């Protein structure tokens, strides 16, 4: 029957349409053509970023794509390669909300202007911390002349890198300038370039991309994948501990600062892209037991190396190298291992 054949064809057509739709869905929400924007110099772009006002109420999705190649650290799964997303809300007046969803739960941090609430759905705990109003004072840089500050910052960078505005891009659906920092050939570094996408209208950074030598894919990319400006629901910036949750007060001083005082001040060798930081670990008996929270066990990482400077373990990642010596020194930098050993030998 003719009609039956027509309908059979229509059925196949529907199936093909479904397959095509599947292909369209799978296509990465792509970079379209680069938007046309008036040209701007690197100095002007940096100055406008420093000068830019608070962008006001916004809601965005921040995606972190991590290909740093960090070794798997027990207890810190977030450091491993992969991508993660977070949602941010801001009311433009100091209140904010951050939520970090995982497949099994969510961490939410709400700043309602007077108190910061941190909620963890895994153990249903709420940690609250009163914040003073003084935490919102703008950094000093805005107090000085932004144009001069920008010019100086760019000038400082140009001692070791080339700073250019390299075309435009669309980030989170918004046209943006691409500010690109490349190390000068004299720099001995693992990094190839660092790109910052700056929103053309609001002049806020939208995306940071770190590219390493020997790979065309970014080693690290963090930025907005979706961004909306406009008034946000005030209910987002309030938090009431839900029934059944445990509320604790945050410790008055974060533990990290204490540890910093115990260790010696780290020394810095070199400047620019091949800066090496050498720090001294606190003696073994003062270190917290490995495996406890905040102190991952590092003793099994890396490969053993030795030289005139001593011996230790070398940890390689896509963008940085670190050497932990057996006598308790740590040297790290975005440099090949040879630069580290030279710095250690000094």
């Amino acid at each position: 029957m003719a009609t039956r054949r027509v309908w059979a064809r229509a059925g196949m057509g529907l199936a093909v349409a479904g397959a095509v739709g599947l292909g369209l869905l799978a296509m990465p929400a792509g970079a379209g053509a680069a938007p046309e924007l008036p040209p701007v110099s690197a100095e002007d772009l940096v100055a406008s970023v420093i000068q830019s006002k608070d962008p006001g109420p916004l809601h965005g999705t921040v995606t972190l794509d991590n290909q740093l190649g960090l070794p798997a650290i027990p207890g810190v799964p977030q450091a491993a390669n992969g991508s993660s997303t977070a949602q941010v809300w801001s009311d433009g007046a100091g209140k904010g909300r951050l939520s970090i969803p995982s497949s099994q739960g969510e961490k939410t941090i709400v700043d309602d202007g007077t108190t910061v609430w941190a909620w963890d759905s895994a153990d249903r705990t709420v940690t609250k911390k009163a914040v003073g109003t003084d935490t919102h004072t703008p950094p000093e840089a805005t107090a000085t002349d932004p144009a001069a500050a920008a010019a100086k910052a760019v000038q400082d960078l140009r001692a070791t890198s080339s700073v250019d505005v390299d075309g435009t891009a669309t980030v989170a659906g918004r046209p943006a300038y691409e500010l690109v920092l490349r190390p000068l050939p004299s720099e001995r570094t693992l990094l190839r370039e660092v790109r910052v996408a700056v929103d053309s209208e609001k002049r806020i950074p939208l995306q940071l991309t770190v590219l390493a030598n020997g790979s065309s894919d970014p080693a690290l990319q963090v930025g907005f994948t979706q961004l909306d400006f406009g008034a946000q629901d005030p209910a987002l910036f309030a938090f009431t501990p839900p029934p059944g949750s445990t509320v604790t007060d945050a410790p008055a001083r974060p533990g990290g600062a204490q540890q910093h005082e115990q260790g010696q001040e780290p020394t810095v060798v070199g400047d620019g892209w091949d800066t090496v930081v050498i720090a001294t670990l606190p003696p073994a008996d003062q270190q917290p037991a490995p495996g406890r929270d905040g102190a991952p066990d590092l003793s099994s990482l890396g490969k053993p190396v030795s030289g005139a400077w001593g011996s230790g373990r070398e940890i390689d990642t896509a963008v940085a190298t670190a050497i932990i010596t057996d006598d308790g020194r740590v040297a790290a930098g975005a440099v090949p291992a040879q630069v580290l050993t030279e710095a250690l030998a000094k």
Partner: protein
Amino acid sequence: MTASLVETGTTPHRGSAPMGRLLGAEMRWVLRRPRTLVMLGLFALVPILIAIGVVVADRGGNGLIGAIAGNGLVLPVVAMTLMLALLLPLAVGMAAADAIAGEAAHGTLRGLLLAPVGRGRLVVMKAFGVLVVTVVATLVVAVVGVVAGLVVVGGADGTLVTLSGTTLGFGEAMGRVGIAALWTVGQLAAVGAIALAISAFTEHPLVVLASVLGGLIVFGVLGAIPALDWLAPYLLTTGFSAGADVLRDPMSWGDIGGSTLRALCYIAIGGGITTSRMLTRDA
């Protein structure tokens, strides 16, 4: 079998049996099957077992199951999400296997193909039967989940504590459960459409069941291989974890919408192939 269908076939108005009556007949036929009823009864036990397990364990476990403790209204959503992995597709696969391949195996499909019921209508009818099983199975899990959550687990004063730490009232919580149920039906309908397409090509119902379950397992394995992550957007199973997003506040629609669109594409593929095959098939 299909006593009611044969009746409709012999009505004086040949070939013009009203669609509503056909669908009603198919629905009764599907829901009267003992195996369907036994399966639905067993499905109803799953949320109850989860609830008892959570209460007996009496400590916050890890992951979504841990979110149920003292927060009963999470139970229906978690139960649907867990059962979407294999159990609910099993029900859909069984219904789809019976719908066409089962009839072929019994030799009754020939009668249906020759009956003055248009073949297009036959496909619609069979698809409707599968959809009925899908909806009923999902509703059983959701309703039993709500009741078991309130009665066995209880807690949170009849409210739902979201993963984001906010509290939703009972009405809004029911809305979220409804969204999760609707989304689950959508995903299962995609499984059912593909199962029907397979069913149209074989006369062994077991082949359909094995393809559905085997396919889901293979999809799960493919989705877990990092080197094949480019394949993930094509796989139906990629979106199966999005159901938990209804437990967030504000609700994030991204994954739910994306996985629903993907399910619609699968429905188009499966439905199209089923239609095409059934219309060109020899009686």
